[in-house]
């Protein structure tokens, strides 16, 4: 039997056992619930979402105003006599007497006033759109047009100053070439009837939801390119969220099934038959994951069809799919119980959603956004080409970490790992120890060090994305400390595993040798990764903090070496109890060294 046939056999088995058989069991209820879901959707479409009903209480002496206000169910309106109203004014968020709006002096009062303004605007528009001479009621039309521009990365903290002018000093005149641009046509290409129809159609709904749902459906959102000033709504800054919900959420959902299937093999040693088959563990894993990979790809392609995007949009998603699969496998293999599985998977999905979502907010604004593959999806949707190096930049970390995770899963897919019930950290150390070979400690440490680097980069990227919006001195300090801590933890993993799983290994000679090997591995792996990825952002201050090893070779090597030596020494002296203090000290030293390198930027 060829390997391919074996994989297919396992895939078929998995589909039958984990998808079809349980699927049949829940089918009647699932169908019933889906029908109910249809009904519930209709119901909520009919009656709207009642989340903010009666938030504001309004008193008025005029039934006409009461009628206007009551059209919005955020308000609870009471019509009272004027004298009564003035006496009990304090019990209302807002009072309308003789056409005057008198809000209470509270946050609610201010918010109620704002909400009332919206309602009043809607009412005025309803009146004006019935006007015979429509362009007397709407004398000003605004046509909006956008241009593309790109900010360079050498402006850290621009997220914090998101509202401010990027270059507020100097001449406003362009420095580059000025291509000639023809002014737009002064007479609007719209008839009064068309305009009125558009106004009536657009009144009533505030349109926020429609704008998001239309984003995927392509352009052609509004019937006319002209808007009245009050219709003018700011552009959506966060289109990406809809992509996250549409494309990433199904991936998360499907990976849950894989986690559960792996977990099920471990309950009551059910998977023993699976392990006893005379095939390699990677064949079993490949076979098991195949149905889920297929499902993820199929769902993504189907979604492409539904939203009418080109299938190319799935391309940046493929490394993400593998990342979800690989981490699903690992989580399924490590969780001790169902509740642990639930908690870990919720945590994992939140963090990874942050990683995918936050950078993509800045799509079209900032190179930083390329950290997330979702940005490439936005580009595809906007029919904007991206280069191969941009593709590598945003997806290589996902690809490499998936490969490392898959490798870890394959190495550990055996009895003593699957059926152990140790704690999470201990299991993690066990998993790593399977990758170490006591016969070749230096080679193992070296390889482990290299494999840890992509994870370090990923964690640091997440960090970078998160602190990017804080004001500058704070963000720099935070990233300095956190990045050093992450790096020191990653470096110490190998030595820690050796010291706990192979007692007696940690002699003074071995501490030194292990430190040298790990530091070397880190240096080389960083260099390799930098070649592919980081060159994009290496010029910025943040780049210098994170990846200070660009120019000189011996400085980063010494920093790496010092850190791991400190942790190793602490482990040698204090055993496991010495690990945490050693790690803290190493982080401090690392920070100090980075500060020294950064002195040119800071002082």
């Amino acid at each position: 039997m060829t390997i391919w046939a074996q994989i297919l056999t396992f895939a078929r088995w998995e589909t039958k056992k984990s998808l079809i058989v349980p699927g049949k069991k829940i089918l009647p209820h699932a169908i019933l619930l889906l029908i109910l879901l249809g009904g519930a959707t209709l119901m909520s479409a009919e009656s709207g979402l009642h989340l903010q009903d009666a938030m504001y209480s309004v008193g008025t002496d005029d039934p006409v105003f009461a009628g206007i206000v009551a059209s919005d169910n955020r308000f609870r309106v009471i019509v009272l006599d004027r004298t009564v109203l003035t006496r009990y004014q304090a019990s209302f968020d807002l009072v309308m007497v003789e056409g005057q709006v008198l809000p209470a002096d509270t946050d609610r009062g201010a918010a109620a006033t704002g909400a009332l303004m919206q309602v009043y605007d809607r009412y005025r528009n309803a009146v004006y759109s019935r006007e015979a001479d429509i362009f007397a009621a709407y004398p000003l039309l605004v046509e909006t047009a956008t241009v593309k521009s790109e900010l360079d990365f050498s402006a850290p903290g621009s997220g914090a100053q998101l509202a401010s002018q990027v270059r507020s000093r100097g001449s406003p005149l362009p420095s580059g070439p000025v291509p000639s641009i023809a002014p737009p046509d002064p007479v609007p290409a719209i008839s009064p009837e068309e305009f009125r129809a558009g106004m009536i159609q657009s009144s009533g709904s505030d349109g926020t939801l429609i704008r998001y749902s239309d984003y995927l459906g392509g352009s052609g959102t509004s019937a006319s390119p002209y808007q009245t000033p009050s219709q003018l709504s700011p552009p959506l800054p966060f289109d990406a969220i809809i992509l996250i919900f549409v494309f990433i959420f199904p991936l998360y959902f499907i990976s849950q099934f894989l986690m559960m299937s792996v977990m099920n093999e471990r309950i009551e040693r059910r998977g023993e038959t699976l392990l006893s088959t005379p095939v390699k563990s990677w064949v079993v894993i490949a076979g098991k994951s195949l149905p889920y990979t297929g499902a993820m790809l199929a769902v993504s392609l189907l979604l492409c069809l539904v939203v009418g995007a080109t299938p190319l949009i799935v391309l940046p998603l493929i490394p993400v799919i593998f990342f979800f699969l690989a981490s699903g496998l690992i989580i399924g293999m490590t969780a001790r119980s169902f509740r642990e599985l639930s908690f870990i998977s919720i945590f994992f999905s939140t963090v990874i959603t942050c990683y995918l979502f936050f950078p993509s907010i800045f799509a079209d604004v900032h190179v930083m956004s390329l950290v997330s593959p979702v940005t490439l999806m936005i580009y595809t949707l906007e029919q904007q080409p991206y280069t191969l190096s941009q593709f590598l930049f945003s997806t290589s970390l996902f690809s490499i970490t998936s490969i490392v995770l898959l490798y870890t899963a394959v190495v550990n897919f055996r009895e003593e790992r699957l059926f152990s019930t140790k704690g999470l950290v201990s299991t993690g150390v066990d998993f790593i120890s399977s990758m170490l070979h006591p016969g070749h400690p230096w080679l193992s440490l070296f390889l482990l060090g290299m494999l840890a680097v992509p994870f370090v980069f990923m964690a640091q990227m997440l960090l970078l994305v998160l602190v990017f919006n804080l004001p500058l001195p704070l963000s720099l300090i935070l990233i300095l400390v956190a990045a050093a801590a992450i790096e020191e933890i990653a470096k110490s993993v190998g030595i820690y595993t050796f010291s706990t799983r192979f007692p007696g290994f940690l002699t003074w000679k071995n501490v030194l040798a292990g430190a040298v090997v790990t530091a070397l591995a880190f240096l080389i792996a960083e260099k390799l990764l930098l070649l592919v990825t980081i060159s994009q952002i290496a010029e910025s201050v943040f780049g210098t903090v994170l990846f200070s090893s660009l120019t000189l070779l011996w400085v980063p090597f010494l920093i790496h070496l010092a850190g791991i030596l400190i942790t190793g020494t602490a482990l040698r002296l204090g055993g496991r109890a010495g690990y945490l203090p050693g790690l803290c000290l190493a982080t401090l030293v690392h920070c100090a060294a980075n500060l020294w390198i950064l002195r040119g930027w800071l002082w």
Partner: protein
Amino acid sequence: MKGRTLSIIMKKDLSALSREKTILLAILLQLFVAMFSSFLLVGLTSLYDPSLVGDYSGTQYRIAYAGEDLPLRFLLDVRGDIRVYPMDLSSAIASLKERKVSAVIYVPPSNPDGPDPITITLYTVQNDIQSAVINVRLKEVFIEYEEQLREIRSSRLTLIPVDLQFPEEDGGAPGFYEFVYGLLLPLLLFMPAVVSAALIIDLITEEYEHRTYETLLSAPVTMVEVVWGKILACFVLVPLQAGAWILLLMLNGIPIAGLPLVMAYVMVSSLALILIGALTGLHYRERTGAQVIFSLAVVVLMLVVLAIPGNPLNQVAVLASGGTVPGQGMILLAGAAAAILLSLAVTRSARGAAG
């Protein structure tokens, strides 16, 4: 049902939970979210209502003005937060691309009292947060100018809307307030309910799949006691988690009023959800199926509940923001009645499951 047995079962499940330390992940997640809540608040609020981003800055914006000199130019000039640079259209657009100006306004030659509307063109940078900000400021100016023009053309108007005078100082957009109290707060407070309901499924199905319920039942406990002990274990987590959210929100400067009633709503609704979870778990005795069905059921339930005026999430929103709702005893009672019905169903189902 014996109280002592119940509390033993409850303690067993709680201690297993704390021994695994994975509940720490849930707390870590809360902290993670709260830590970046400044970013989240700005980010999510503007997601909800992009015009709010404008409130976050007091800087001056540079606008390039091209074309005809209309009174609009004067309205722009008098504003403190906008600086106007007259330019020709081509160089204005080039400046915009280099981000030396935030927006470009082009005004064609036009007649204020003509039959046609005056059509101006606004150029901004695509998909940019700054464009959202400048858009908000310019909108105010445009509305002002629209009023002026409407005044000029007023003799042609036949329908006049009733007049309403707003106070001088700006009320501000209600978006932030409504986002925090009318969306974020109810969702965060009801999240522990969903977590606990998923947890009860895990706890119940685990006993079946690990065949530990057989061992458990050989002790002097009944299945009903086992199930109710687990329900209590999940239920006591709800006030802890919801309390943590309330604390974190308060630390972020969001005061929450009407705490006792808010908590009452959260507890009653959570109990109902946990009971639904328990029913699903008892029926399927297998995690994957139960979780799939339960998540579907939660989506349906949420849609239905939100479509009903005066639902618990709405009540929490109003109460927490310091408002009062008439007749809320009835709503709470209705919730409690639903919970009691569900409890009876769970007890029956557990009794049946023992066999």
